[in-house]
């Protein structure tokens, strides 16, 4: 029995991991333009980006998943709805891009002006200043908040079940209905624990690597 349950849960966990990896990859990248938009000197762009971030961070991710999945076909009758998985991924990527952009922004804005000015007086170009002076300092500053947010993402993947994605908790819950077993649901917790434990180790390593200097 234990192995059948484990097998089933692993099937669900594969989807959990898929949502995690895809979301992480795209929102780490897309967070950057959003961050630069929210710091733009061009007011309309800054205003627009900050409103977007405010809306996304101010509403539940669960609601966003539902809206992305059902919304388009409700508004335009002819639109074929997105597949469930695509809808989840789109909603997650949008949501996490907004969160990551704020972390990037915080990290970039925390760099003292003196760092840029010192580099400028030494004749460095803007590109050199970004890559040689600012970037590592930003990375060092954002690793701790980033780790928090990424651990949250691991657990947020369970929200996908709201539109019937059979991620790991869904699979665990099925055993209640089909076999009247409660323990598989508790067992799913172990998957999250192990996954988050591994990530915590990795983040610890990264922080340690950047420990050679202080900002």
């Amino acid at each position, binding site marked *: 029995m234990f192995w059948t349950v484990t097998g089933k849960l692993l099937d669900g966990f594969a989807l959990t991991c898929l949502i995690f990896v895809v979301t992480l990859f795209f929102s780490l990248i897309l967070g950057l333009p959003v961050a630069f938009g929210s710091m733009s000197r061009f007011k309309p762009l800054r205003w627009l980006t900050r409103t977007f971030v405010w809306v996304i961070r101010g509403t539940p991710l669960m609601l966003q998943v539902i809206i992305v999945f059902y919304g388009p076909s409700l508004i335009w009758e002819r639109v074929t709805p997105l597949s469930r998985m695509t809808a989840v991924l789109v909603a997650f990527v949008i949501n996490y891009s907004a969160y990551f952009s704020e972390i990037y922004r915080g990290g970039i804005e925390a760099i003292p002006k003196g760092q840029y*000015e010192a580099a400028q007086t*030494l004749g460095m170009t803007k590109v050199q200043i970004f890559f*040689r002076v600012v970037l590592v300092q930003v990375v060092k500053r954002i690793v701790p908040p980033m780790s928090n947010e990424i651990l949250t993402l691991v657990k947020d993947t369970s929200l996908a079940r709201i539109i019937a994605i059979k991620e790991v908790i869904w699979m665990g819950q099925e055993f209640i209905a089909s076999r009247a077993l409660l323990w598989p649901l508790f067992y799913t917790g172990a998957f999250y624990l192990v996954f988050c434990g591994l990530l915590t180790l990795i983040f610890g390593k990264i922080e340690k690597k950047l420990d050679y200097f202080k900002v």
Partner: protein
Amino acid sequence: MENTILEVRSLSKSFGKVEVFDDISFSLEKGSVMAMIGASGSGKTTMLRCLNFLETPDEGQILVNGECIYDALDSSTHQEKDIRHKRLHFGLVFQSFNLFPQYTALRNVTLACELLATENSDYRTGRSRIISDINSRARNLLDQVGLSDKLDSFPHQLSGGQQQRVAIARALAMKPDILCFDEPTSALDPELTGEVLKVIKSLAEVHTTMLIVTHEMSFARDVADNVVFMDSGAIVEQGPPSQVISNPRESRTRQFLDRYLE
């Protein structure tokens, strides 16, 4: 006046409605040291920032070695890509050091030199020689400021006085015509100011052209060939320290100094 290395002509700067200074002119002889003193808010920092192209003056001209590098009325002197090179006429040592925290003392000194060297046409062929030259020069400079045993230390492992001395070596590495200091010891504990002032004095002895904003009056008197006293955005008095600091003519200078000497 063929030895004039820096000439500032009728420079003015405002931030919005706040006029920082108006119609300031002075000149600096090659190999000489000028100390700039004045009350807080009198515009000293802003003046140094204008010279280093960190602020844009509203009016006036800046000439280095007789060449006009900035003219408020001539927009061809404002071009972004030229400014980067013009900055190199000046070095700036900040009140708060501003070392790059992720690099060792040695790397702080070499980084910008190496990046600049990549723009040379012979960089590709002579790369290893150029880099080793830059490295040995940097070691010499750090030796000169008394830090030959701290080459591999990171800024957070150094005291404020040591960090400031690295910053001085870093600025010198770019071979500026004029080295500017903005209150180089103001952020330091009193027992650490001595080591930094000593380094600046040793630079004066080898005739490094320097423009030093400072509140250390006895230091200014010792090291400067000329002292400029600024008050509310204007030069009130300038001359040798024996005049401006020891025997000021203007009552405003006297009032200012009285506050410092008590």
